[in-house]
């Protein structure tokens, strides 16, 4: 049993194609990739929203004014 489909390299490389593990699962792996990508956006949107809500209450007016002048 070999996850890449070859148990030895006693082959003619001219007749060899894909050698990655779990061939036949490409669509499932692509779906996992999409879940990872979209899930990342979801987590990031939620976290940034929470952070900005906290941040809007953190500032002190005089310090903000000074920061604005500093550019």
């Amino acid at each position, binding site marked *: 049993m*070999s996850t*890449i489909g070859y148990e*030895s390299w006693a*082959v003619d490389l*001219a007749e*060899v194609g894909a*050698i*990655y593990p779990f061939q036949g699962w490409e669509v499932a792996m692509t779906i996992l990739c999409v879940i990872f990508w979209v899930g990342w956006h979801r*987590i990031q949107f939620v*976290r940034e929203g929470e952070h900005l809500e906290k941040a809007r209450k953190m500032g002190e007016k005089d310090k903000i004014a000074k920061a604005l002048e500093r550019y």
Partner: protein
Amino acid sequence: MDGNLNALTTVFTEFYYWVTVVFMFLIHVGFCMYEVGASRSRNHMHTLMKNVMIIPLVTVTFFLFGWWIYWAFPNFPLFGGLDTEMGAANLPWSENMGTNLGDRITGVFWAAFLLFSWTAASIVSGSVIERIRSSALWVHAVMIGSVFWIIDAAWGWHYAGWMVKYLGYHDAYASGVIHAIAGGYALGVIMVLGPRLGKFAADGTPRDIPPHNPWMLTIGIFLIYTGFWGFYAACNVPVISPEVIGGEIVGTTWTATNIYLAPTTLSAITVNFLMSLSGGLMAAYVVSKGDAFWTFSGGLAGIITASAGNDLYHPVQAMLIGAVGVVIVYNLHYWVERRFKLDDAVGAVAVHGYSGVVGLVISGFVLWGAPSSPFEGYAAVNPIGQTLGAIIMFFVLGFLPGWAISKMQAAAGVLRIPEEVELQGLDYAEHHAYEDAKASITESDKTLLAQK
């Protein structure tokens, strides 16, 4: 070089490795920038010099004995004697090491391995900044760069290494042979060296010691990424025929191979490098809650975790393995810091050491049954062999020597700088000399001006 095809292949291979060496120099530039940026202003010149002098010290010692170890040690001492014939061809006084029209490859191959040696030493250098004596670090640099990592390369990163033959060890882009060993070595050193003053509060709570220049860290790690491309390419043989490999492959199709002479493609490793970098960056951003430096380091950790099998993985596998690795090493870093009060100043033990170990173990499952070599009679890749390999890299050849040599240095009183110097800063004397020189030349100029 008889025949035009042979000549072209040889010169192409020579040039290929030369390009990788130039790219890999950027890894060292990046490490220097990262360390200096992470240190406080009062220490930055010493921090820089500590890392820069790794270059000549490891180079000279790698020329003297490191390269010989790689060729003489593949089965020594457990599974045979020294390979004196191969070793002799790579000794400093061998004709192959000088300008030689009959051997155009040994020199650039030596240089590619040397740059890996600098990297191994530089990984250790980062974790010990602001409190180790340079003299002590430079001994460690020689030991990890020209002795211990190259022993592990002979055992597990050589087509005839005993770990490849008997364990089915597979580590195409050095998760273990560079990163796990260097991280383990760094852990051994910092365990004896102790934390920087003030790193832990009286109740044991760790304090963050912010970098003095975040932009240097950022550029530094991006340069490390860039140099890592060269590192990946340098781990391959660019083009070779089955006849020259001399293993079980039949037919006449030429191929690129990994370090074990087993087939892969430059295309595959390029895609997998980018996907594991991306998986690492995305996971690190989430797990560190957007911390910039952990995110950048996470990109590196993602690549390192996937490196053992990036010659064979599917791109999605490379991405997910990079992501999983980062989540594990991030949590492990803070657990170790809190539990054992260890100060790993740049997270090197985690990013390199833990990532390397995790990457080896994962690859044992994902590549289970794949041939580790094109030669007959070698064990196939398997989880037990990869896990044993990880233990050999991280603990046996990394942690133990680092810890033991540091213990000897500590006993001799030459490991750590005095507390007074740590507080005033390693650059204090140089700062004084700089200020005195400025005052002196300014005074001189003023006197001259008054006379006009």
